[in-house]
C-alpha cells in the first residue's frame, strides 16, 4: 500500500483500519480466547456481511497463476481461493481437536497476515468479555436532567442553571449514532478513538466499546508506529494496552449507564487510565445532551463485576427500587400476575402464612432424610427445639430477603463497603458483637467525627453539605423523635435505644470510625445463609444488610444508609 497523506483530524478511527498482526497486544488479545470461541469468532469474521470490515487474504482470482503460486509456495498457510473455502476450513477445525495456538498462528500468519482491523480486535475483545463476564468492574451512573435556564439573563446572572431538574417528566432517551457523533466531538483532537457497538446475548443492554489511541491521525499512521521505528515500539505497546479500552453499557429503558473500570495493571500509569475514563465520563452527558435539554451524570454508589446484578438494581424491570424483602412485590412472572390479579377469588397466601410454611416443611421432608423426620418424631426435646429454631431462622430470612439473595441466582455483588456513622452503643454491647461476628475488616479508631464539638446544628449543616440528597429535616426528625416517642418500637437495635435515652449524650456520643467491607462471590446471599444458619439474628439485622438499598457503598446513619438510596429516586 502506498503511503497516503495523513492529516490530523478530529474524526474517529475507522473500523476497517488494520493493525499489524505482529503487535504484541494483538497476539495477547487473540491468545487469551479459548479455541472454540476463537473459531466461532473467525467464522463471524468470514460472514459475507462482515467482508468490508475484516477481509481475509485471498488469492486473486484472475491473475497470473504462476506468479501467485511462487509467491505462496513456501507458505505455511497458503491463502484460500474463496471465502467459502476458508469458512469450510475453519468449520473443519471446529470439529477437529487441536490447540489454540494453531488457530492463532493461522489467523496472524495466514489469512490475516496483512493485519487485523480494529473491528476484528473489538470483536475479539468483546468475545473475551462474554466468555469471562466477571473481568470488568462496572460503576453505575444515573442520567439526570439539568434545569433549562428560562432566559438568557439567568445564564449570565448566576450559575444556578446547573441544578438538577427534579420535576422533569422526561425520561432521557438514547440514540446510538447521534450519541457517538456527539461523543466524538467531545474527545480531544490529539486522541483518536474507535467505537464499537454490540448487543450481548441475553442481556437487555447495548454495549459500547471505546478504544483510544494517542494519535492525531485516523489513518494507518495511528496504528503503524511500532513497525516504523523501534524507538516508538514501547509507546505503541502501551497504547494498545487493555487499559485504554473503556466499555460503556446502556441498559434498555433505564436512565442509567454503566461504565467499566479498568482492571489491568499494565504498563500504563493509573493516572492516565483514570484521566481517560474521566474524559469519557465527562463526555457522555454532553453527548447525550441536546440544545435546551442538558443532562448530567450522577454516581449512584453501585459498583460490581456482575452485570446481571447491576441490571436487576438499575435495569428496565420492576426490581430497581424493590430489592431485598420488597422483591415479593416486584415478581413479574405470568403466574404472579395471575395470583395477584384482582379477579383471583382465592384468598391470598402471603409468603409467610401457615400454608406455605407447611409446604416448606413438606419439601424439607421430601428432600430426603427421613431420618430427621423420624428422629423428630422420637420427641427428643433438644432436637425439636433446634428444628424449631432453624425453621424460624429460615422464615425470618424469607421475610427479610424474599426471593432475592439466593446463592444461585447469579446476581451476586462481590463487595460491599459501608461506613458506620452511628454513635457507639453504650448500654448494649451485643450490637457490636453482632457486627464483630461477621466482618473481617473492622477498624475502630479513636478519631471522632468532625462536627462533634460544634453542636447539633453545625453538624447537621455539615451533614447536609456532605450529602445533597439527604434532607436536613431527616436529621432533625431523628433528633426530635427520640424525645417524642421513646417506646414506639421496642425491638430496635440497641444503638437506637441508647440514644433514645437522652439527647445530650447523643450530642457528645463517641462515634468511632467503623468501616465494614464485605467480600465474597455473592455478599447478600452469604448474609442470607448466615441468617438461615442462625448466626445473624435476622430480626435485628439492619436493612442495608439485605441489599435492599441497592448500593455497594454507603454511609450508615441511624441504622440506615444515608440518602434514601433504596427508593431509587
Amino acid at each position, binding site marked *: 500500500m502506498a503511503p497516503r497523506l495523513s492529516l490530523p483530524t478530529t474524526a474517529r478511527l475507522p473500523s476497517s483500519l488494520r493493525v499489524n498482526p505482529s503487535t504484541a497486544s494483538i497476539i495477547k488479545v487473540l491468545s487469551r480466547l479459548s479455541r472454540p470461541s476463537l473459531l466461532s469468532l473467525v467464522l463471524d469474521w468470514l460472514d459475507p456481511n462482515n467482508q468490508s470490515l475484516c477481509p481475509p487474504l485471498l488469492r486473486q482470482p484472475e491473475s497470473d497463476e504462476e506468479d501467485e503460486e511462487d509467491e505462496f509456495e513456501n507458505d505455511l498457510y497458503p491463502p484460500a481461493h474463496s471465502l467459502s473455502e476458508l469458512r469450510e476450513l475453519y468449520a473443519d477445525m471446529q470439529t477437529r481437536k487441536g490447540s489454540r495456538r494453531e488457530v492463532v498462528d493461522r489467523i496472524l500468519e495466514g489469512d490475516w497476515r496483512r493485519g487485523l482491523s480494529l473491528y476484528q480486535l473489538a470483536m475479539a475483545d468483546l468475545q473475551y468479555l462474554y466468555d469471562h463476564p466477571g473481568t470488568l468492574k462496572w460503576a453505575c451512573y444515573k442520567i439526570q436532567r439539568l434545569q433549562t435556564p428560562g432566559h438568557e439573563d439567568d445564564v449570565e446572572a448566576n450559575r444556578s442553571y446547573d441544578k438538577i431538574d*427534579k*420535576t422533569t*417528566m*422526561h*425520561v432521557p*432517551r438514547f440514540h446510538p449514532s447521534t450519541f457517538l457523533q456527539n461523543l466524538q466531538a467531545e474527545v480531544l483532537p490529539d486522541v483518536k478513538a474507535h467505537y464499537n457497538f454490540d448487543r450481548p446475548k441475553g442481556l437487555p443492554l447495548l454495549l459500547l466499546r471505546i478504544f483510544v489511541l494517542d494519535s492525531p491521525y485516523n489513518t494507518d499512521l495511528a496504528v503503524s508506529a511500532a513497525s516504523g521505528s523501534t524507538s516508538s515500539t514501547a509507546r505503541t505497546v502501551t497504547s494498545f494496552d487493555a487499559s485504554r479500552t473503556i466499555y460503556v453499557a446502556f441498559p*434498555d*429503558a*433505564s*436512565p*442509567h449507564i454503566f461504565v467499566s473500570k479498568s482492571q489491568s495493571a499494565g504498563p500504563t500509569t493509573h493516572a492516565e487510565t483514570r484521566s481517560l475514563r474521566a474524559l469519557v465520563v465527562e463526555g457522555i452527558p454532553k453527548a447525550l445532551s441536546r440544545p435546551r435539554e442538558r443532562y448530567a451524570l450522577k454516581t449512584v454508589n453501585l459498583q460490581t463485576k456482575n452485570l446481571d446484578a447491576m441490571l436487576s438494581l438499575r435495569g*428496565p*424491570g*420492576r426490581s*430497581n*427500587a*424493590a430489592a431485598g424483602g*420488597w422483591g415479593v*412485590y416486584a*415478581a*413479574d412472572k405470568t403466574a*404472579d*400476575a395471575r395470583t395477584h*390479579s*384482582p*379477579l*383471583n*377469588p*382465592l*384468598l391470598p397466601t402471603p409468603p409467610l402464612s401457615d400454608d406455605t410454611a407447611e409446604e416448606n416443611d413438606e419439601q424439607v421432608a421430601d428432600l430426603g432424610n427421613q431420618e430427621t423426620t423420624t428422629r423428630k418424631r422420637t420427641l427428643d426435646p433438644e432436637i425439636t427445639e433446634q428444628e424449631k429454631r432453624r425453621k424460624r431462622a429460615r422464615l425470618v430470612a424469607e*421475610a427479610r430477603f424474599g426471593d432475592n439473595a439466593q446463592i444461585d441466582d447469579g446476581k451476586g455483588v462481590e463487595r460491599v463497603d459501608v461506613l458506620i456513622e452511628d454513635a457507639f452503643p453504650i448500654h448494649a454491647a451485643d450490637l457490636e458483637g453482632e457486627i464483630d461476628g461477621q466482618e473481617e475488616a473492622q477498624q475502630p479508631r479513636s478519631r471522632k467525627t468532625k462536627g462533634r464539638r460544634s453542636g447539633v446544628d453545625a453538624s447537621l449543616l455539615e451533614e447536609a453539605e456532605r450529602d445533597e440528597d439527604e*434532607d*436536613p*429535616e*431527616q436529621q432533625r*426528625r431523628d433528633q*426530635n*423523635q427520640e424525645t*417524642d*416517642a421513646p417506646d*414506639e*418500637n421496642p*425491638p*430496635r*437495635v440497641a444503638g*437506637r435505644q441508647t440514644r433514645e435515652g437522652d439527647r445530650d449524650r447523643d450530642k457528645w456520643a463517641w462515634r468511632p470510625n467503623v468501616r465494614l467491607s464485605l467480600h465474597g462471590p455473592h455478599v447478600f446471599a452469604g448474609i442470607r445463609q448466615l441468617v438461615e444458619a442462625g448466626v445473624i439474628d435476622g*430480626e*435485628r*439485622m*439492619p*436493612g442495608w444488610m*439485605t441489599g*435492599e438499598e441497592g448500593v455497594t457503598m454507603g454511609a450508615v446513619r*441511624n*441504622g*440506615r444508609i444515608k440518602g*434514601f438510596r433504596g*427508593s*431509587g*429516586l
Partner: protein
Amino acid sequence: MGTRVSLSPELSVADRLHDEIAKLRAQVESLKGDVRLQTATLMTADSTRQILQSQTTGDRQSRASEAVKQRLLERFQEQSAHKQQCLYRACATITTFKVNDPDPNAVDGGNVLGLRFEIMSKAKFVRPYYVMLNRPYTNRRYVRIHRHTVPQCIPLAGLAAQHLPPPAARNDEDPPKKQDLSRFARALRRELVRYHNRAAVIGDMKKAAGLGAKKASDQESDTAIVDISAADAEANQISMQWRDGRSGRLIMNNDGEIVKMVVQGDNGQDRETVRQFLGGAVRVEEVTRRLESH
C-alpha cells in the same frame, strides 16, 4: 451383557415410574387448586351465608359442629372481605394497604403505606404496580417514596417532586409546598395507563401491518413494512422499516396523538410515504385502522 440388557428396561421402568409420579403430583396440585377455587366460590355465595347464619340460630348442634361452624363463618368473613377488596381493586384500580417494614431501624416505626395500581393490558390485569410510602420527616404527615416497583420509563421522580415535595428545609426561603397524595396517585396511574396504552397501540399496529405472528409474516411476504417497534423506553416513538430499505420514525405524544413522522428513503426524506401512511390521521389508532383496511 445380560445384566446390561436387564438394566436398561429397569431404568426405563424407574423413569416411567418417576414420570408417573410427577404426573400424579401435578394432577394432585391441579385438583387441590380446583378444590380451593370451588371452596372460594362456595364461600362467597350468599346461600352459604344464609345456611351458616341459620345454623347459628338453631341450638340442636353439638359442640364440635359449633366449632366447625364458627371456623366456617370466620372463613366466610375473610373470603367476603377479600371479595370486596378485589372488587375495589378491579374497579377503583388504586387501592392502599399497610405494610410493616421489616428493617428494625425503619423510620416511623416501620409503618409503610402501600399504593397498589391495577393496570389492564391485553384484556388482562398485569401484575399490579406498587408504591410504598413512609414518613421520614419530623412530626409531619409528609410522606416520601420508600420503595416502588414502577418501571424506569415512568417519570416517578418528577411526579414525586411535583406532588409529594419534601418539607422545606430551614434555610429555604420558599414557602413549604403541600403534598397531595391523591393527586400523585392519580397522576401516576395516568402515566402507567398511558404507557401501557402506547405499548398496546404499537402492538396493534404491528398486527395490523401483518407482523403480529411469525407465521403471518411468512405467508404474506408482500407486506411493505417489515418491522415496527417501539424506539424508546417510554414507547413514544415508533420505528418502522420498509422492505425496500426505507426507514421511518413516528413520534406520538403521551396521549397517543401523532406529533411528527419522518421517513427516510434512498434519496433523503420521503414525504410521499408519510402522507400515504398517515392519511391525515391525528391519532395513532387511526393509522392502525388504515393499515388494517389495506
